[in-house]
């Protein structure tokens, strides 16, 4: 057997929770439909078994690691006075610059923070992932497997930028995963969720021609991607994934900032947040449970159970005359169905906008309308209210909503399926839709009457070139065959050049000519070493650049076509 991997493992590193799962690579496991995937639920330091642990890190005053997961949230309650301990959450969202300003600092260590612009989100991500990786490695190798038998897959949101995905790869390596793109795969969350649903046989996902969307509603982001099943059952991505940072954790923030503050007053809630951090986290857990069961089917009030310490804090507020709430303290908060529904609706409206945008993209790309399927996955997909709202809105547009059996583990199990199919060289994806135009700044042959004279330059061979051209490798929204590179040959302009520096560019425009066109951005700088070719005549000092665009990464390779020797390429993301 040629496959070097005997076991594949998936890690779903979520904004709210993180888990891992794995599957043995064997003949009996080859079919995705009957593949046995093992889930882990016995986290150290956690009395209650659960497939995901909390993506939380407890640090001391100097920022050093103390604990992680639910254990971290529980231990903050026992923090010595003045210790400066902090529970850090939401750091996954802070990895990407564009998402950093969305959060709130309310609650601080209450376990509900989406992002408070953590400057050290990367470091916290490494800390958290290191624990997950250690647990996964310990469990998988506790039997007969060796570490080198494992192929890993870590999932990332579809809306993450290239540089953030690269940062995630780096964080995963620093956390202990192999620094080898063949052994460590990154995969987009909705894409792997599609594999899970396909394996489950949910909906007509194995029927050629079927068009479907995957809505991955997690704690931080809601990602939407769209695919069409080709004649061989492979998946063609029809438009680049889109998303919105309106995951279910934002409902937690709204609950804390709006509902609890309204009930208890800003003064009381502020003091409880400052003095009883563990108590707030427990109360948020009660809200989390209530949120998951909130339904449109009944008009019953929603009951949030306060933790003992929270209730004691309210009583103390009253006894000391500082109570700023309405009525008397009680052991629970009762919220009207309408108020919770309004909270949900605000977020679901944003989700629907993104779903409809992606639906329109797919309809335009496939020139067909109606009869689509929407697969709803992710932790938020367990919400009966979200399901009902989406089903109603989509039904009006001739779209059917399907929720798989276990939507909360769809990404986790999908990551295992993805690693398995890639390990066996049987990718289920046929092509990706380029999310933007990608190319390289180059001096291309001068086109008289087309290129401006100001750009005309002569190279060492006396040829007229046009400087500052955007040499397009992948045009925005073009189908990019999985694993197929685009190749270009470049030569140095000057005799004495020992390196070729190439700017990797991107733009949203599909039609682009020059690097100075509006919207063109530099993604990275590639430096290709030519020193080994300096003995050759300049006309023979060529490099071939091969660029791959997969679902999560742009990969660039360079080689000398004369000698077939690979040239070292260094990429610095901007």
């Amino acid at each position, binding site marked *: *057997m040629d496959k070097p991997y*005997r*076991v594949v493992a998936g890690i779903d590193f979520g904004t709210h929770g993180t888990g891992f*799962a*794995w599957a*043995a*690579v*064997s*003949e*009996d*496991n080859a079919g995705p439909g009957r593949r*046995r*995937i*093992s*889930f*882990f*639920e*016995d986290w150290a330091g956690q*009395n*209650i*078994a*659960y*497939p995901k642990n909390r993506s939380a890190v407890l640090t001391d005053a100097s920022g050093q690691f103390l604990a992680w997961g639910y254990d971290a949230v529980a231990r903050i*309650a*026992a*923090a010595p*006075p003045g210790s400066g301990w902090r529970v850090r959450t939401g750091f996954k969202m802070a990895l990407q610059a564009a998402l950093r300003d969305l959060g709130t600092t309310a609650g601080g260590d209450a376990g509900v923070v989406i992002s408070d612009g953590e400057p050290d989100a990367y470091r916290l991500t490494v800390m958290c992932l290191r624990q997950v990786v250690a647990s996964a490695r310990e*469990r998988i190798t*506790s*039997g007969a*497997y060796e570490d080198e038998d494992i192929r890993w897959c870590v999932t990332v949101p579809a809306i993450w930028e290239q540089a953030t995905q690269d940062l995630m790869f780096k964080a995963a390596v620093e956390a202990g995963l192999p620094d080898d793109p063949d052994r460590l795969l990154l995969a987009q969350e909705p894409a792997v969720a599609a594999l899970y649903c396909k394996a489950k046989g949910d909906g007509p996902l194995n029927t050629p021609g079927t068009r479907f969307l995957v809505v991955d509603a997690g704690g931080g982001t809601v990602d939407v991607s769209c695919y069409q099943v080709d004649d061989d059952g492979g998946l063609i991505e029809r438009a680049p994934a889109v998303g919105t940072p309106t995951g279910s954790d934002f409902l937690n923030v709204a609950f804390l900032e709006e509902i609890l503050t309204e009930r208890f007053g800003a003064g009381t809630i502020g003091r409880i947040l400052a003095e*009883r951090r*563990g108590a707030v986290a427990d109360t948020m857990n*009660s809200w989390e*449970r*209530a949120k*998951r*069961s909130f339904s449109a089917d009944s008009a*019953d009030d*929603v*009951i949030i159970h*306060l*933790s*003992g*310490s929270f*209730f*004691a*804090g309210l*009583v*103390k507020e009253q*006894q000391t005359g500082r109570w700023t709430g309405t009525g*008397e303290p*009680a*052991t*629970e908060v*009762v919220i009207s169905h309408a108020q919770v529904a309004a909270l949900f609706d605000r977020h679901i409206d944003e989700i629907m906008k993104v779903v409809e945008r992606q639906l329109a993209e797919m309809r335009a790309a496939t020139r067909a309308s109606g009869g689509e399927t929407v697969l709803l996955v992710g932790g938020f997909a*367990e919400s009966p209210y979200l399901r009902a709202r989406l089903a109603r809105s989509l039904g009006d547009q001739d779209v059917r909503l399907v929720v798989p*059996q*276990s939507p909360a*583990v769809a990404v986790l199990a999908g990551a295992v399926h993805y690693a398995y199919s890639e390990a066996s060289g049987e990718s289920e994806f046929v092509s990706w839709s380029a999310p933007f135009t990608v190319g390289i700044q180059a001096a291309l042959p001068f086109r008289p009457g087309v290129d401006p004279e100001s750009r005309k330059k002569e190279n060492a061979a006396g040829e007229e070139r046009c400087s500052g051209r955007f040499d397009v490798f992948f045009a925005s929204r073009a189908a990019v065959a999985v694993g197929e590179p685009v190749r270009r040959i470049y030569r140095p302009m000057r005799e004495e050049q020992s390196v070729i520096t190439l700017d990797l560019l991107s733009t949203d425009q599909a039609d682009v000519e020059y690097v100075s066109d509006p919207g063109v951005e530099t993604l990275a700088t590639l430096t290709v070493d030519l020193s080994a070719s300096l003995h050759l005549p300049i006309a023979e000092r060529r490099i071939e650049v091969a660029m791959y665009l997969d679902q999560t990464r742009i990969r660039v390779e360079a080689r000398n076509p004369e000698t077939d020797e690979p040239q070292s390429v260094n990429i610095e993301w901007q």
Partner: protein
Amino acid sequence: MDTAGDDGPRLQLRVANNDGPAVSLEEWMSFITAELTRQQAVMQQLSIQLAELSHEVPVLRSALTESRLSAQTLRSASDELRRRMDALDQRLNKVLALIEENFGGGQTEQAMQHHDYVDEYVALVEQKVVGLALEILPDGTQATAREKAEFVAEVCAGLFGAPQVIDEQLIGLLPTAAPEEASQRMREICACARALRAKVTQGRPQRWEFGYEPAPVDSQWQEPWTGAARDGVVEFVVTPAYFVDTNTLLHKQKVFTSEAGSAPDTDPAED
């Protein structure tokens, strides 16, 4: 070559040898003869060698054929070895997968369904049962923690502690003055509990744990009912713990604690 006539002074035929100087014809002929003799000797030598080689060729040819056969045998042995290695690798993967399946300790997706059942259980108790308590207790949310806990405990015992869920028994827990709507809600609660009890019998063995010791709360698997005495001893179980397999805890038991003279948990917090 110079040339000369026969009469007159005797002419001598001379030829130029290889080095240039002219030599007589006799000398030249003698040289040629010697050379021919040498060539003949060489030819004889070559002939002998050829005869020897002719003898060796069949041996070599045979050796070559043998080597070819050996190479073929080796290749086929190597192919066979590769096939056997692949087959062994597949069998090894199968064995490893079996070991993993039986001793790996991971849970299947089917087994994970219990987490969904726990969510249903918690939602039923925390939303519907407590909601009914707040509705039928005279002081609603302002009822004491004990009043709420006692009602929830009795309902949970009927829903999850009795051999069967009997609607009328549970409706009997409602105050006589309770509106008909409360009875209807209790019937809905009973229906939900019956459905849940049917589901939890699938897959991993499951149990609702009502047992307790009249001792301080064991935070490993219990937690106090909000508003009960802090640092007290367990007086009764409000909601049962949810266990699967031998002792895997999926939801903690909620207990009402009390201690003679102890105050409810309204003291300043610990932090």
